[in-house]
């Protein structure tokens, strides 16, 4: 597992209060992890802070699974 993936999963666990083994790469934030739309906004803010990346709204809308987040961050982080 990549370093990005580890850090993303840690943030998801902390923010959504879910168990770590539920946070698989295919897990959907809303359907599998019980996030609501406001949680997604907060997660994106947390990712931006942790990785120093800018995630514009149109990109954020496409991030629906854990894997989506990892991929976007890996492709865009400095």
């Amino acid at each position: 597992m990549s370093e990005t993936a580890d850090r993303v999963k840690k943030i998801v666990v902390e923010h959504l209060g879910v168990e770590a083994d539920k946070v698989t790469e295919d897990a959907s934030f809303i359907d599998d992890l019980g996030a609501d739309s406001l949680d997604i906004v907060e997660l994106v803010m947390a990712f931006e802070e942790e990785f120093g990346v800018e995630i514009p709204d149109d990109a954020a809308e496409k991030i629906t699974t854990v894997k989506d987040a990892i991929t976007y961050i890996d492709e865009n982080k400095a």
Partner: protein
Amino acid sequence: MFDLTGMTALVTGASGGLGSAVAKALAAQGAKLALSGSNIDKLEAFRSQLGGDHVAVPCNLSDAAAVDALIPQAVEALGGKLDILVNNAGVTRDNLTMRMKDEEWDQVISVNLEATFRLIRAAAKPMMKARFGRIISITSIVGATGNPGQANYAASKAGIVGMSKAVAQELASRNVTVNCVAPGFMRSAMTDVLPEAQKAALLGKIPAGDLGKGEDIGAAVVYLASKEAGYVTGQTLHVNGGMAML
């Protein structure tokens, strides 16, 4: 009760009559303020009169880019956090609807409603993150009752009320409350110069028999800003001497 020590607040239109009264009330409860306004000299004069370690963050609310920059500026000036946002600034461009020019409509909507939206949008982020926030917008009795010659102003104020209810629902779970304070007819430079007969007619409509004072609005804002008001959200607190009971 209603102690604001350790809390920070941004007040727009802070050098105006109502804004300065709201700022004084918040400062008296211990809040540290960022005072915003478009007239830099007036703003600085008020800031030094207020004393303390309050800061001035000038802003022209009809300039969208300046409005978007205001919250980050205030957060920085206040040492990294913003607990309370008071949207007080507003303008009037009164005219009968038939005569109202596009510019008169646009200016009022832009400063009163759109700038308020931009400030709320920007403030929501740090407040949500902090799991605490108080957003208070000063509306008007006119937004609920209407007033001839003020279609633009009434629309802008009613617009803030609806917007606040929507945002209140979005942010309630994060301990961020969004409320409005709606003044009735206030004592001001404008009402001071009214002819006696007109003044008497005006007071006849107010059960309390007097015009409102800035302090009356300041006290309402302090309440809604306090920790104690945490279960109150999406509301409009009417402060109007009983003139309209809504």
